[in-house]
Protein backbone atom coordinates (compact mmCIF):
# COMPACT_ATOMS: atom_id res chain seq x y z
CA UNK A 1 0.00 0.00 0.00
CA UNK A 2 1.26 3.45 -0.74
CA UNK A 3 0.80 6.10 1.88
CA UNK A 4 0.26 9.78 1.42
CA UNK A 5 2.48 11.81 3.76
CA UNK A 6 0.05 14.75 3.71
CA UNK A 7 -2.97 12.93 5.03
CA UNK A 8 -3.78 12.00 8.63
CA UNK A 9 -3.51 8.27 9.27
CA UNK A 10 -6.44 6.05 10.25
CA UNK A 11 -6.41 2.53 11.65
CA UNK A 12 -9.18 0.19 12.72
CA UNK A 13 -8.60 -3.13 14.41
CA UNK A 14 -10.81 -5.94 15.70
CA UNK A 15 -9.86 -7.85 18.82
CA UNK A 16 -12.46 -10.17 20.45
CA UNK A 17 -15.41 -8.97 18.42
CA UNK A 18 -17.98 -10.01 15.85
CA UNK A 19 -17.09 -7.63 13.02
CA UNK A 20 -20.27 -5.59 13.47
CA UNK A 21 -18.26 -2.52 14.40
CA UNK A 22 -16.45 -2.64 11.05
CA UNK A 23 -19.84 -2.87 9.36
CA UNK A 24 -21.02 0.15 11.34
CA UNK A 25 -18.18 2.18 9.82
CA UNK A 26 -18.98 0.90 6.34
CA UNK A 27 -22.63 1.78 7.09
CA UNK A 28 -21.61 5.39 6.71
CA UNK A 29 -22.47 4.73 3.08
CA UNK A 30 -21.30 7.42 0.66
CA UNK A 31 -19.71 9.28 3.51
CA UNK A 32 -17.05 6.59 3.69
CA UNK A 33 -15.64 8.30 0.59
CA UNK A 34 -15.13 11.44 2.63
CA UNK A 35 -13.24 9.39 5.20
CA UNK A 36 -11.09 7.98 2.43
CA UNK A 37 -10.49 11.43 1.02
CA UNK A 38 -9.38 12.87 4.36
CA UNK A 39 -7.52 9.91 5.80
CA UNK A 40 -4.83 7.61 4.71
CA UNK A 41 -5.86 4.15 5.89
CA UNK A 42 -2.74 2.46 7.25
CA UNK A 43 -4.15 -0.59 9.05
CA UNK A 44 -7.66 -2.04 8.77
CA UNK A 45 -7.73 -5.85 8.48
CA UNK A 46 -11.45 -5.97 7.63
CA UNK A 47 -11.07 -4.03 4.40
CA UNK A 48 -7.40 -3.93 3.41
CA UNK A 49 -4.52 -6.35 3.49
CA UNK A 50 -2.11 -4.97 6.04
CA UNK A 51 0.18 -7.22 8.05
CA UNK A 52 1.15 -6.89 11.69
CA UNK A 53 4.68 -6.24 10.48
CA UNK A 54 3.46 -3.18 8.57
CA UNK A 55 2.12 -1.88 11.84
CA UNK A 56 5.34 -2.71 13.67
CA UNK A 57 7.34 -0.78 11.07
CA UNK A 58 5.49 2.50 11.68
CA UNK A 59 7.09 5.08 13.98
CA UNK A 60 5.44 5.61 17.40
CA UNK A 61 2.46 7.94 17.21
CA UNK A 62 2.27 7.52 13.44
CA UNK A 63 -1.48 6.79 13.45
CA UNK A 64 -3.60 9.86 14.10
CA UNK A 65 -6.81 8.00 14.89
CA UNK A 66 -7.16 4.38 15.89
CA UNK A 67 -10.62 2.87 16.20
CA UNK A 68 -10.10 -0.20 18.33
CA UNK A 69 -13.06 -2.53 18.58
CA UNK A 70 -13.33 -5.81 20.41
CA UNK A 71 -12.56 -6.94 23.93
CA UNK A 72 -9.29 -8.44 25.18
CA UNK A 73 -9.65 -12.17 25.65
CA UNK A 74 -6.37 -13.65 24.36
CA UNK A 75 -2.69 -12.78 24.06
CA UNK A 76 -3.03 -11.65 20.46
CA UNK A 77 -5.74 -9.13 21.39
CA UNK A 78 -3.52 -7.86 24.17
CA UNK A 79 -0.41 -7.61 22.02
CA UNK A 80 -2.24 -5.64 19.35
CA UNK A 81 -3.77 -3.34 21.95
CA UNK A 82 -0.29 -2.43 23.18
CA UNK A 83 1.11 -2.11 19.68
CA UNK A 84 -1.72 0.09 18.44
CA UNK A 85 -1.56 2.25 21.55
CA UNK A 86 2.13 2.81 20.94
CA UNK A 87 1.58 3.68 17.29
CA UNK A 88 -1.49 5.91 17.77
CA UNK A 89 -2.00 9.48 18.89
CA UNK A 90 -5.71 9.03 19.61
CA UNK A 91 -7.05 5.67 20.74
CA UNK A 92 -10.81 5.18 20.65
CA UNK A 93 -12.48 2.22 22.35
CA UNK A 94 -14.95 1.71 19.55
CA UNK A 95 -18.15 -0.16 20.34
CA UNK A 96 -19.33 -1.98 23.41
CA UNK A 97 -16.70 -4.79 23.43
CA UNK A 98 -13.74 -2.43 23.61
CA UNK A 99 -15.61 -0.03 25.87
CA UNK A 100 -16.97 -2.45 28.48
CA UNK A 101 -16.52 -6.08 27.41
CA UNK A 102 -19.91 -6.72 25.76
CA UNK A 103 -20.97 -10.27 24.81
CA UNK A 104 -17.42 -11.73 24.97
CA UNK A 105 -17.14 -10.63 28.60
CA UNK A 106 -20.16 -12.71 29.59
CA UNK A 107 -17.48 -15.41 29.71
CA UNK A 108 -16.51 -13.83 33.03
CA UNK A 109 -19.59 -15.53 34.48
CA UNK A 110 -17.85 -18.85 33.99
CA UNK A 111 -14.29 -20.16 33.79
CA UNK A 112 -11.81 -20.71 30.99
CA UNK A 113 -11.79 -24.45 31.68
CA UNK A 114 -15.54 -24.61 31.43
CA UNK A 115 -15.49 -22.80 28.09
CA UNK A 116 -12.72 -24.94 26.62
CA UNK A 117 -14.39 -28.14 27.77
CA UNK A 118 -17.71 -27.02 26.37
CA UNK A 119 -16.22 -26.34 22.97
CA UNK A 120 -13.64 -29.12 22.65
CA UNK A 121 -15.00 -31.98 24.75
CA UNK A 122 -18.62 -31.84 25.82
CA UNK A 123 -20.48 -31.22 22.59
CA UNK A 124 -22.50 -34.14 21.23
CA UNK A 125 -20.61 -33.70 17.98
CA UNK A 126 -17.18 -33.82 19.68
CA UNK A 127 -15.12 -36.98 19.54
CA UNK A 128 -12.20 -36.09 21.77
CA UNK A 129 -11.66 -38.94 24.27
CA UNK A 130 -8.14 -37.75 25.12
CA UNK A 131 -9.41 -34.25 25.87
CA UNK A 132 -6.98 -32.65 23.46
CA UNK A 133 -7.02 -28.88 23.85
CA UNK A 134 -5.47 -26.15 21.74
CA UNK A 135 -1.99 -25.33 23.04
CA UNK A 136 -0.29 -21.93 22.85
CA UNK A 137 2.90 -23.72 21.68
CA UNK A 138 3.20 -27.00 19.85
CA UNK A 139 6.65 -28.20 18.82
CA UNK A 140 6.79 -30.47 15.78
CA UNK A 141 9.46 -31.56 13.34
CA UNK A 142 8.90 -28.64 11.02
CA UNK A 143 9.12 -26.12 13.86
CA UNK A 144 7.00 -24.70 16.66
CA UNK A 145 3.38 -23.82 16.01
CA UNK A 146 1.97 -20.99 18.08
CA UNK A 147 -1.56 -19.96 18.94
CA UNK A 148 -2.64 -16.99 21.03
CA UNK A 149 -3.11 -17.92 24.70
CA UNK A 150 -6.75 -17.93 25.81
CA UNK A 151 -7.28 -15.90 29.01
CA UNK A 152 -9.33 -16.70 32.07
CA UNK A 153 -10.94 -13.25 32.01
CA UNK A 154 -12.21 -10.94 29.31
CA UNK A 155 -11.13 -7.33 29.76
CA UNK A 156 -12.20 -4.06 28.27
CA UNK A 157 -9.60 -2.10 26.32
CA UNK A 158 -9.06 0.47 29.08
CA UNK A 159 -8.13 -2.30 31.51
CA UNK A 160 -5.14 -3.05 29.27
CA UNK A 161 -4.00 0.25 27.74
CA UNK A 162 -4.71 3.94 28.10
CA UNK A 163 -7.82 4.93 26.15
CA UNK A 164 -8.59 8.47 24.96
CA UNK A 165 -12.29 8.14 24.06
CA UNK A 166 -15.14 5.69 24.30
CA UNK A 167 -17.70 5.26 21.56
CA UNK A 168 -20.53 3.06 22.86
CA UNK A 169 -22.98 0.87 20.99
CA UNK A 170 -23.30 -2.67 19.71
CA UNK A 171 -22.52 -1.58 17.14
CA UNK A 172 -22.40 2.23 17.26
CA UNK A 173 -25.10 3.90 15.18
CA UNK A 174 -23.76 5.40 11.97
CA UNK A 175 -25.18 8.88 12.56
CA UNK A 176 -23.21 8.93 15.82
CA UNK A 177 -20.09 7.58 14.13
CA UNK A 178 -20.37 10.27 11.51
CA UNK A 179 -20.82 13.02 14.10
CA UNK A 180 -17.67 11.81 15.86
CA UNK A 181 -15.72 11.59 12.61
CA UNK A 182 -16.63 15.18 11.82
CA UNK A 183 -15.33 16.36 15.18
CA UNK A 184 -12.08 14.48 14.59
CA UNK A 185 -11.77 15.75 11.02
CA UNK A 186 -12.30 19.34 12.18
CA UNK A 187 -9.64 18.87 14.82
CA UNK A 188 -7.15 17.39 12.36
CA UNK A 189 -7.76 19.78 9.50
CA UNK A 190 -8.77 23.02 11.23
CA UNK A 191 -7.16 22.61 14.63
CA UNK A 192 -10.49 22.81 16.51
CA UNK A 193 -10.45 21.25 19.96
CA UNK A 194 -11.07 17.57 20.66
CA UNK A 195 -13.37 16.53 23.52
CA UNK A 196 -11.67 16.12 26.93
CA UNK A 197 -9.71 12.91 27.33
CA UNK A 198 -11.76 10.04 28.69
CA UNK A 199 -15.01 11.39 27.22
CA UNK A 200 -17.79 9.13 26.07
CA UNK A 201 -18.43 10.35 22.55
CA UNK A 202 -21.13 9.61 20.01
CA UNK A 203 -23.84 9.17 22.65
CA UNK A 204 -26.24 11.17 24.81
CA UNK A 205 -26.35 12.02 28.49
CA UNK A 206 -29.77 10.67 29.53
CA UNK A 207 -31.56 7.32 29.58
CA UNK A 208 -32.86 5.56 26.47
CA UNK A 209 -36.34 5.95 28.03
CA UNK A 210 -36.09 9.69 27.54
CA UNK A 211 -35.88 9.39 23.79
CA UNK A 212 -38.26 6.44 23.61
CA UNK A 213 -41.64 7.56 22.24
CA UNK A 214 -43.60 4.67 23.80
CA UNK A 215 -46.23 5.73 26.31
CA UNK A 216 -45.34 5.28 29.97
CA UNK A 217 -47.71 4.91 32.91
CA UNK A 218 -47.26 4.22 36.61
CA UNK A 219 -47.84 0.50 36.58
CA UNK A 220 -46.59 -2.65 38.24
CA UNK A 221 -46.57 -6.11 36.77
CA UNK A 222 -47.09 -9.61 38.08
CA UNK A 223 -44.85 -11.47 35.66
CA UNK A 224 -42.21 -10.99 32.98
CA UNK A 225 -42.30 -12.53 29.54
CA UNK A 226 -39.59 -13.72 27.21
CA UNK A 227 -39.70 -11.86 23.90
CA UNK A 228 -41.22 -14.85 22.06
CA UNK A 229 -44.06 -15.26 24.55
CA UNK A 230 -46.09 -12.16 23.73
CA UNK A 231 -46.63 -9.68 20.95
CA UNK A 232 -46.44 -6.32 22.70
CA UNK A 233 -48.89 -3.46 22.16
CA UNK A 234 -47.14 -1.17 19.71
CA UNK A 235 -47.36 2.15 21.55
CA UNK A 236 -46.94 1.22 25.20
CA UNK A 237 -43.75 1.00 27.25
CA UNK A 238 -42.44 -2.56 27.02
CA UNK A 239 -41.42 -2.78 30.65
CA UNK A 240 -45.03 -2.14 31.68
CA UNK A 241 -46.03 -5.00 29.43
CA UNK A 242 -43.65 -7.35 31.19
CA UNK A 243 -40.86 -7.35 28.63
CA UNK A 244 -37.47 -6.63 30.14
CA UNK A 245 -36.21 -3.37 28.74
CA UNK A 246 -32.87 -1.92 29.80
CA UNK A 247 -33.96 1.56 28.68
CA UNK A 248 -34.05 3.06 32.19
CA UNK A 249 -30.46 1.95 32.93
CA UNK A 250 -28.92 2.65 29.53
CA UNK A 251 -27.34 5.74 28.02
CA UNK A 252 -29.21 7.19 25.08
CA UNK A 253 -27.79 8.00 21.66
CA UNK A 254 -29.23 5.28 19.45
CA UNK A 255 -32.64 6.94 19.15
CA UNK A 256 -34.33 4.17 21.18
CA UNK A 257 -34.25 1.88 18.17
CA UNK A 258 -35.09 -1.44 19.79
CA UNK A 259 -38.18 -0.60 21.87
CA UNK A 260 -39.72 1.10 18.85
CA UNK A 261 -39.80 -2.23 17.06
CA UNK A 262 -41.10 -4.16 20.05
CA UNK A 263 -37.79 -5.46 21.37
CA UNK A 264 -36.70 -4.34 24.82
CA UNK A 265 -33.48 -2.34 24.89
CA UNK A 266 -30.58 -4.76 25.47
CA UNK A 267 -28.46 -2.05 27.09
CA UNK A 268 -25.81 -1.75 24.41
CA UNK A 269 -24.95 1.92 24.98
CA UNK A 270 -23.74 1.14 28.49
CA UNK A 271 -24.54 2.68 31.87
CA UNK A 272 -25.94 6.16 32.43
CA UNK A 273 -23.56 9.01 33.23
CA UNK A 274 -22.48 8.76 36.87
CA UNK A 275 -23.39 5.08 37.14
CA UNK A 276 -20.60 2.55 37.60
CA UNK A 277 -22.55 -0.65 37.45
CA UNK A 278 -25.27 -0.90 34.83
CA UNK A 279 -26.67 -4.17 36.19
CA UNK A 280 -27.11 -2.75 39.69
CA UNK A 281 -28.97 0.20 38.22
CA UNK A 282 -31.17 -2.18 36.28
CA UNK A 283 -32.07 -4.06 39.45
CA UNK A 284 -33.46 -0.83 40.86
CA UNK A 285 -35.36 -0.08 37.67
CA UNK A 286 -36.86 -3.55 37.41
CA UNK A 287 -37.68 -3.58 41.13
CA UNK A 288 -39.85 -0.53 40.73
CA UNK A 289 -42.24 -2.25 38.32
CA UNK A 290 -42.55 -5.50 40.30
CA UNK A 291 -45.93 -5.91 41.91
CA UNK A 292 -45.66 -6.25 45.70
CA UNK A 293 -49.21 -7.43 46.35
CA UNK A 294 -51.94 -5.58 48.26
CA UNK A 295 -51.17 -3.05 51.00
CA UNK A 296 -51.50 -4.57 54.45
CA UNK A 297 -50.41 -8.05 53.40
CA UNK A 298 -48.33 -10.12 55.81
CA UNK A 299 -44.55 -9.73 55.47
CA UNK A 300 -44.12 -13.31 54.25
CA UNK A 301 -46.87 -12.91 51.67
CA UNK A 302 -45.31 -9.76 50.29
CA UNK A 303 -42.07 -11.64 49.89
CA UNK A 304 -43.81 -14.55 48.17
CA UNK A 305 -45.64 -12.25 45.74
CA UNK A 306 -42.40 -10.54 44.78
CA UNK A 307 -40.52 -13.81 44.47
CA UNK A 308 -43.14 -15.13 42.08
CA UNK A 309 -42.51 -12.18 39.76
CA UNK A 310 -38.72 -12.52 40.03
CA UNK A 311 -38.98 -16.22 39.19
CA UNK A 312 -40.03 -15.18 35.70
CA UNK A 313 -36.61 -13.55 35.06
CA UNK A 314 -34.48 -16.55 34.11
CA UNK A 315 -31.03 -14.99 33.83
CA UNK A 316 -30.66 -11.63 35.59
CA UNK A 317 -26.85 -11.51 35.48
CA UNK A 318 -26.66 -12.32 31.78
CA UNK A 319 -29.52 -9.95 31.02
CA UNK A 320 -28.48 -6.94 33.08
CA UNK A 321 -24.75 -7.20 32.27
CA UNK A 322 -25.09 -8.35 28.68
CA UNK A 323 -22.80 -5.50 27.59
CA UNK A 324 -21.06 -4.23 30.69
CA UNK A 325 -19.63 -7.26 32.47
CA UNK A 326 -15.97 -6.19 32.19
CA UNK A 327 -16.81 -2.81 33.74
CA UNK A 328 -19.06 -4.25 36.44
CA UNK A 329 -18.10 -3.78 40.08
CA UNK A 330 -17.48 -7.49 40.63
CA UNK A 331 -15.83 -7.98 37.21
CA UNK A 332 -16.15 -11.76 37.18
CA UNK A 333 -18.05 -14.52 38.94
CA UNK A 334 -16.57 -16.76 41.60
CA UNK A 335 -16.46 -20.08 39.83
CA UNK A 336 -15.56 -23.58 40.74
CA UNK A 337 -12.37 -23.90 38.72
CA UNK A 338 -12.62 -27.66 38.58
CA UNK A 339 -15.97 -27.60 36.77
CA UNK A 340 -15.92 -29.54 33.52
Amino acid sequence: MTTNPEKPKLAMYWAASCGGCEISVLNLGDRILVIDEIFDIVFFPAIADFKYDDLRSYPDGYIDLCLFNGAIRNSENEELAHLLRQKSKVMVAYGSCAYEGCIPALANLTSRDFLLNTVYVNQPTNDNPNRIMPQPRYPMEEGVLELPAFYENVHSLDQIVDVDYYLPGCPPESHQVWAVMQVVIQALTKGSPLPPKGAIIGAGEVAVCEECPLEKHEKTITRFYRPYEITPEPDVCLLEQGLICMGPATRNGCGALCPQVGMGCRGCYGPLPGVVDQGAKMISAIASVIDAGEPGMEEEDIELAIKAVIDTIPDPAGTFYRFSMAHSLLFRAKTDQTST
Partner: protein
Amino acid sequence: MNNQFEPVILGFLCNWCSYRAADLAGTARIHYAPNMRPIRVMCSGRVDPQFVLKALREGADGVLIAGCHPGECHYVNGNIKTIRRYLLLRKMLKQWGIEEERVQLVWASASEGKQLAEAVDRMTEMLRALGPLRWNETVLGQPGINGDMAPAETLAEEASA
Protein backbone atom coordinates in the same frame (compact mmCIF):
# COMPACT_ATOMS: atom_id res chain seq x y z
CA MET B 1 -7.20 -15.15 71.64
CA ASN B 2 -8.57 -17.87 69.44
CA ASN B 3 -8.17 -17.48 65.70
CA GLN B 4 -11.70 -18.08 64.58
CA PHE B 5 -12.63 -16.16 61.46
CA GLU B 6 -14.19 -12.78 62.21
CA PRO B 7 -16.33 -11.84 59.24
CA VAL B 8 -16.79 -8.20 58.29
CA ILE B 9 -20.45 -7.28 57.86
CA LEU B 10 -21.35 -3.93 56.40
CA GLY B 11 -24.70 -2.87 57.85
CA PHE B 12 -26.92 -0.32 56.14
CA LEU B 13 -29.33 0.74 58.88
CA CYS B 14 -32.39 2.92 58.42
CA ASN B 15 -32.21 6.09 60.48
CA TRP B 16 -35.83 5.84 61.67
CA CYS B 17 -35.83 2.32 62.99
CA SER B 18 -32.91 -0.08 62.75
CA TYR B 19 -30.23 2.48 63.51
CA ARG B 20 -32.17 3.32 66.67
CA ALA B 21 -32.57 -0.37 67.32
CA ALA B 22 -28.79 -0.69 67.20
CA ASP B 23 -28.53 2.27 69.58
CA LEU B 24 -30.98 0.62 71.90
CA ALA B 25 -29.06 -2.64 71.78
CA GLY B 26 -26.02 -0.60 72.86
CA THR B 27 -27.68 1.35 75.69
CA ALA B 28 -29.40 -1.82 76.87
CA ARG B 29 -25.96 -3.46 76.95
CA ILE B 30 -27.08 -6.39 74.86
CA HIS B 31 -24.15 -8.62 74.06
CA TYR B 32 -23.86 -9.39 70.39
CA ALA B 33 -21.23 -10.03 67.74
CA PRO B 34 -19.09 -6.94 67.08
CA ASN B 35 -18.75 -7.84 63.41
CA MET B 36 -21.12 -5.32 61.89
CA ARG B 37 -19.87 -1.92 60.74
CA PRO B 38 -23.04 0.19 60.74
CA ILE B 39 -23.74 2.88 58.16
CA ARG B 40 -26.78 5.06 58.72
CA VAL B 41 -29.04 5.67 55.74
CA MET B 42 -32.22 7.73 55.72
CA CYS B 43 -34.31 4.78 54.55
CA SER B 44 -33.58 1.20 53.55
CA GLY B 45 -34.83 2.33 50.12
CA ARG B 46 -31.70 4.48 49.87
CA VAL B 47 -29.54 1.37 49.56
CA ASP B 48 -28.56 1.32 45.90
CA PRO B 49 -27.59 -2.22 44.84
CA GLN B 50 -24.30 -0.61 43.78
CA PHE B 51 -23.53 -0.05 47.49
CA VAL B 52 -23.89 -3.76 48.15
CA LEU B 53 -21.73 -4.79 45.20
CA LYS B 54 -19.09 -2.25 46.11
CA ALA B 55 -18.99 -3.50 49.69
CA LEU B 56 -18.55 -7.10 48.53
CA ARG B 57 -15.94 -6.07 46.00
CA GLU B 58 -13.94 -4.09 48.51
CA GLY B 59 -13.60 -6.58 51.29
CA ALA B 60 -16.90 -7.14 53.14
CA ASP B 61 -17.80 -10.77 53.80
CA GLY B 62 -21.48 -9.90 53.96
CA VAL B 63 -23.95 -7.02 53.82
CA LEU B 64 -26.90 -6.53 56.13
CA ILE B 65 -29.69 -4.16 55.16
CA ALA B 66 -32.06 -3.27 57.97
CA GLY B 67 -35.21 -1.19 57.72
CA CYS B 68 -38.66 -0.52 59.10
CA HIS B 69 -41.31 -3.22 58.93
CA PRO B 70 -43.50 -3.12 55.82
CA GLY B 71 -46.21 -0.55 56.39
CA GLU B 72 -44.00 1.45 58.79
CA CYS B 73 -41.54 3.11 56.43
CA HIS B 74 -41.14 6.81 57.12
CA TYR B 75 -41.37 7.40 53.39
CA VAL B 76 -44.44 5.15 52.99
CA ASN B 77 -43.03 2.43 50.74
CA GLY B 78 -39.25 2.86 50.58
CA ASN B 79 -38.90 -0.52 52.24
CA ILE B 80 -41.19 -2.17 49.68
CA LYS B 81 -38.77 -0.92 47.07
CA THR B 82 -35.94 -2.38 49.15
CA ILE B 83 -37.43 -5.84 49.39
CA ARG B 84 -38.04 -5.99 45.63
CA ARG B 85 -34.48 -4.92 44.86
CA TYR B 86 -33.03 -7.15 47.49
CA LEU B 87 -34.77 -10.32 46.32
CA LEU B 88 -33.71 -9.69 42.75
CA LEU B 89 -30.17 -8.84 43.79
CA ARG B 90 -29.93 -12.04 45.80
CA LYS B 91 -31.09 -14.12 42.87
CA MET B 92 -28.52 -12.44 40.66
CA LEU B 93 -25.67 -12.76 43.14
CA LYS B 94 -26.06 -16.53 43.06
CA GLN B 95 -25.01 -16.37 39.41
CA TRP B 96 -21.85 -14.60 40.51
CA GLY B 97 -21.10 -17.45 42.90
CA ILE B 98 -22.01 -15.40 45.98
CA GLU B 99 -23.92 -17.37 48.60
CA GLU B 100 -27.39 -16.07 49.51
CA GLU B 101 -26.50 -15.74 53.18
CA ARG B 102 -23.95 -13.05 52.40
CA VAL B 103 -26.62 -10.44 51.72
CA GLN B 104 -29.49 -10.26 54.19
CA LEU B 105 -32.46 -8.03 54.82
CA VAL B 106 -34.05 -7.69 58.23
CA TRP B 107 -36.83 -5.54 59.60
CA ALA B 108 -36.17 -4.01 62.99
CA SER B 109 -38.23 -1.20 64.51
CA ALA B 110 -36.68 1.32 66.91
CA SER B 111 -37.76 -0.81 69.87
CA GLU B 112 -36.37 -4.07 68.47
CA GLY B 113 -32.77 -3.79 69.65
CA LYS B 114 -32.79 -7.39 70.70
CA GLN B 115 -34.07 -8.62 67.34
CA LEU B 116 -31.40 -6.64 65.50
CA ALA B 117 -28.67 -7.96 67.79
CA GLU B 118 -29.89 -11.50 67.19
CA ALA B 119 -29.90 -10.95 63.45
CA VAL B 120 -26.28 -9.78 63.58
CA ASP B 121 -25.34 -12.77 65.73
CA ARG B 122 -27.07 -15.17 63.33
CA MET B 123 -25.49 -13.64 60.29
CA THR B 124 -22.04 -13.66 61.87
CA GLU B 125 -22.40 -17.39 62.53
CA MET B 126 -23.55 -18.05 58.96
CA LEU B 127 -20.61 -16.13 57.53
CA ARG B 128 -18.22 -17.94 59.83
CA ALA B 129 -19.52 -21.20 58.40
CA LEU B 130 -19.10 -19.91 54.84
CA GLY B 131 -15.65 -18.47 55.40
CA PRO B 132 -14.20 -15.25 54.05
CA LEU B 133 -15.29 -13.78 50.73
CA ARG B 134 -12.25 -11.55 50.04
CA TRP B 135 -13.29 -10.82 46.47
CA ASN B 136 -10.13 -8.99 45.44
CA GLU B 137 -7.80 -11.72 46.59
CA THR B 138 -9.74 -14.87 45.82
CA VAL B 139 -11.71 -13.97 42.73
CA LEU B 140 -9.75 -11.19 41.10
CA GLY B 141 -6.37 -12.45 42.25
CA GLN B 142 -5.26 -9.06 43.51
CA PRO B 143 -3.53 -8.28 46.75
CA GLY B 144 -5.23 -6.05 49.31
CA ILE B 145 -8.48 -4.24 48.90
CA ASN B 146 -9.73 -1.93 46.22
CA GLY B 147 -6.91 -2.66 43.78
CA ASP B 148 -7.17 -1.96 40.10
CA MET B 149 -7.72 -4.72 37.57
CA ALA B 150 -4.89 -7.16 37.11
CA PRO B 151 -2.03 -5.49 35.23
CA ALA B 152 -1.66 -6.67 31.68
CA GLU B 153 1.62 -8.53 32.28
CA THR B 154 -0.08 -10.95 34.61
CA LEU B 155 -2.68 -11.91 32.04
CA ALA B 156 -0.43 -14.06 29.93
CA GLU B 157 0.84 -15.90 33.01
CA GLU B 158 -2.70 -16.43 34.16
CA ALA B 159 -3.59 -17.86 30.75
CA SER B 160 -0.74 -20.31 30.61
CA ALA B 161 -1.29 -21.47 34.19
